[in-house]
């Protein structure tokens, strides 16, 4: 999967062919981001979303997918800088940037086969956002393991 080639077009379609030949996503290297954004779920790799998405997520932490995940302003600023600097390339040319990786077009098309359904049931997965429930190497950036 070549994440350097990850492009967020108007339709947010990542060309899968371009992703198919590199086998990992650059893992989160910033300890602060790993700790704070890894408290409730794995710390998602910044390359999965464009900078505009990370900015919006960091600006709305007091209502984060139905929870308060607020941070003090200094920590918030540092994490936002890290995420934006390492974000997926390209721009989301929409009025509002996507907030979920799990709603992106490439994601839903990669996750509709029977293997996903089987894992979902057998591992008692709560949400598709729990990448590590199915991808054991998710934290290290490996998603082709299973």
């Amino acid at each position, binding site marked *: 999967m070549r994440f350097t080639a990850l492009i967020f077009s108007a339709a947010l379609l990542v060309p899968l062919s371009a992703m198919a030949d590199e086998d990992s996503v650059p893992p989160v290297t910033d300890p602060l981001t790993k700790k704070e954004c890894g408290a409730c779920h*794995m710390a998602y790799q910044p390359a999965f979303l464009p900078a505009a998405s990370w900015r919006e997520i960091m600006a709305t932490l007091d209502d984060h997918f139905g*929870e*308060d995940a*607020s941070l003090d302003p200094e920590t918030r600023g540092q994490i936002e800088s890290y995420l934006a600097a390492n974000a997926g390339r390209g721009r989301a040319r929409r009025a509002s940037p996507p907030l979920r990786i799990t709603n992106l077009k490439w994601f839903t098309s990669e996750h509709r086969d029977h293997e996903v359904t089987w894992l979902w049931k057998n591992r008692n997965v*709560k949400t598709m956002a*729990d990448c590590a429930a199915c991808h054991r190497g998710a934290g290290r950036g490996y998603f082709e393991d299973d």
Partner: protein
Amino acid sequence: MRSLLILPAVIALLATVDAEAGARQALLDGFATQAKAADSGFAGFSASRGENLFRTSFAGGKPDTPACTVCHTPSPLKQGETRAGKPIEPMALSASPDRYGDPKKVAKWFRRNCKSVLGRECTAPEKGDFITFMTGQ
């Protein structure tokens, strides 16, 4: 000779445990001071009020998180789970000895979780009651 080598390690370990117990007590003392300042009739923390806070379903918070037990389970001794599926160590001090020893961590999670569950920050007496309940479990 060997015991001489082990001794410093034991002292270091005891010192860590001690420092955490000290931090926990300082935290409770701080909540007590705040509680007294707000209400001169404040007569100390109560584990049963803490348990009540822990178990009550509130209507003022965010719809998916009406109670502490949504994530922490009804048992303080059991491992909980976030809404995104990540395990949470038990809340009882007896099961998770590191709990309530880091004032910044405690402040951050009380702020977040009380806002999610109650729709407001918890008061000093509520925080003291909660920790008193959990340290007795």
